[in-house]
């Protein structure tokens, strides 16, 4: 990213909206498709004003037909279009799971490179707003085991814009996760068209004592935790994974080898998900540099309950990351 470019403070929703607008300008073969994304601008307002600018043909409302929405994207991509779908809530990805894992993700491989699934599926995920069991899930674990799929998970508005434009440019199918609790968060966003490369993590804060690997909403929590602990003499490095699949193992491993301690923070349930993958990978590749076991911060192994009093019990936050870092720091330095 060119550091000379002008920036403007903007919410994540606006940054994503800008990326869609710039993508539509740059790629005549791009179109948007989803439920009530047209005149209404989508449930979260992400596609606002795009229908007025690009019209019915390129900003396409659909009935509640998630399989057909993604099927349409796959078929259109097979003949060279660049569709971008909105699945209103990530929880509904079950309705089009087959299209994603059996068609979009396998198309390029099984037909020997003859088709490209150049499509993006944007979806609102994550908890923290009282959405209840069917509107709050973190679904990355559902898709982590799917070769051929790219999973992108931004934590701030500037990355959201650059990563979405990179996803639109990509010839692979991208599942683009937008954490609902980050939609209204603000940050400096460069103006104009730019891309943030897929498959590369960012060091969101440099540090020397412990590495926290985080995604989406866990990143601001980790940064907050790092700030709190800085006052207590602990230097925390925060790695924002940004792309969950294929993920940037080099950056993670380099960081952990340097700090010798690792915390992995992730909102989804712990079993069989990103936390499992990262901790296994770190343990395998950094074993000799680690002062102790990887410490994990995960969501509880439950669906997400509705009541606020219950919901906050199952979702990890800054406090959980602070205690995880403390635990990691109590491990004796091996003096390597």
């Amino acid at each position, binding site marked *: 990213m060119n550091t000379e470019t002008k920036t403007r403070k903007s919410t994540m929703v606006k940054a994503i909206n800008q990326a869609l607008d710039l993508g539509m300008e740059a790629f005549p073969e791009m179109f948007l498709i989803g439920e009530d994304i047209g005149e209404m601008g989508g449930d979260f307002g992400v596609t606002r004003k795009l229908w007025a600018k690009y019209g019915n043909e390129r900003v396409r409302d659909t009935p509640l037909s998630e399989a057909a929405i993604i099927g349409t994207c*796959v078929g259109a991509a097979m003949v060279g279009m660049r569709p971008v779908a909105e699945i209103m809530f990530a929880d509904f990805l079950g309705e089009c799971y087959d299209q994603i894992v*059996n068609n979009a993700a396998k198309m390029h491989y099984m037909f020997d490179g003859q088709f490209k699934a150049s499509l993006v599926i944007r979806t609102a995920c994550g908890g923290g707003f009282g959405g209840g069991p069917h509107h709050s899930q973190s679904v990355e674990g559902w898709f982590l085991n799917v070769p051929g799929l790219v999973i992108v998970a931004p934590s701030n508005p500037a990355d959201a814009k650059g990563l979405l434009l990179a996803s639109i440019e990509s010839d692979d199918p991208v599942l683009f996760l937008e954490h609902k609790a980050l939609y209204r968060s603000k940050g400096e966003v460069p103006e104009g068209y730019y891309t943030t490369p897929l498959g590369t993590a960012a060091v969101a804060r440099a540090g020397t004592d412990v590495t926290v690997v985080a995604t989406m909403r866990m990143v601001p929590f980790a940064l907050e935790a790092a700030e709190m602990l800085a006052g207590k003499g602990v230097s925390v490095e925060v790695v924002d994974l940004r792309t969950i699949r294929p993920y940037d193992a080099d950056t993670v491993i380099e960081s952990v080898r340097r700090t010798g301690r690792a915390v992995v923070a992730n909102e989804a349930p712990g079993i069989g998900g990103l936390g499992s993958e990262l901790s296994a990978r770190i343990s395998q590749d950094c074993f000799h540099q680690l002062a102790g076991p990887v410490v994990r911060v995960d969501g509880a192994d439950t669906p997400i309950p509705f009541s606020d009093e219950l919901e906050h019990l199952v979702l990890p936050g800054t406090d959980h990351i602070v205690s995880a870092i403390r635990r990691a720091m109590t491990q004796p330095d091996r003096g390597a």
Partner: protein
Amino acid sequence: MDESTLSSLYSDMWLIRAFEQGLESEFEKGNVPGMLHTGLGQEATQAALAANLEATDAYFPDHRCHGINALAQQRHRGDGRRIMAELFGRSTGVCSGKGGSLHSADPRAGNYGDNAIEGSYMATVLGVALAAKMRGEPKVACAIIGDGTVGRGEFHESLNMSAIWELPTLYACVNNGYAIFTPVGKGHASANIIDLARGYGFPCEQVDGNDIEAAHAAVLRACDHIRGGKGPYFLEFMTWRWQGLFTGEFRPPDEVRYWREEHDAILMAGARLKEMGWTDDDLEKVEGEARDIIESWIEFAKESPPPDPAKATADVYAGFEVSPS
């Protein structure tokens, strides 16, 4: 139908039958890996579709469409052998052996790929149709689906979206009476799938899928309608598959006799040709030619080298490398 059209379709039907029978015998000898579903008995339906789909169209075949794929490959790409080689898992196959009998594709032949998630391409076909409509290309986007496959939710999602967007989609429903073991009338609210399609408001036709003249005329009507920009079309072909269960025949003997002896597509077309003056020798010559061609295709497949091991991890992504573990 004029004699030359019928004669050409008769050859096509024999090519399909010879292809499937040749394949079946190689499968029994253990030379073809995986599973095998054949289009035997459905030759008229398949030949009618293949004859009307151009290289610039897009069709999504199902698990019994080797014959359509071979005809399309032969006609549009000049080399039907590559479909046979794909089924043998060889490097010369249309997907270098990565797809096999359930996943062969060549878009330049109009073949957008078999899919072993039966009918999931009822959704995919929408995108090809939509892109054609947005670009103003006169393409027919065709999904070939079995009667059983109609049970999927995508059937309704797809017909509905084709209707509201007036897409150039052709639904070719091959009603062969059964989904594996389940009779069509037991699996659906009606044994006539057309009853389930009619509510979407675009033209629907039910035709005798073993009568090549009727089937061909119906496909032609449907394609003309679609190419004329008039929106989707639904065809139900009433036919019957020779293949019972993998373990054997389960259908009543009268039914088997009717479809194999009285209402077989090739026998009926042969009878029509004889009315036009053909002799038994003329008919046998066509069969012999088809069998010779298929024998040479099988030979080609068997002699072709296996895929390059690098193919195992190639093309997982278009933009990222995957290293062999």
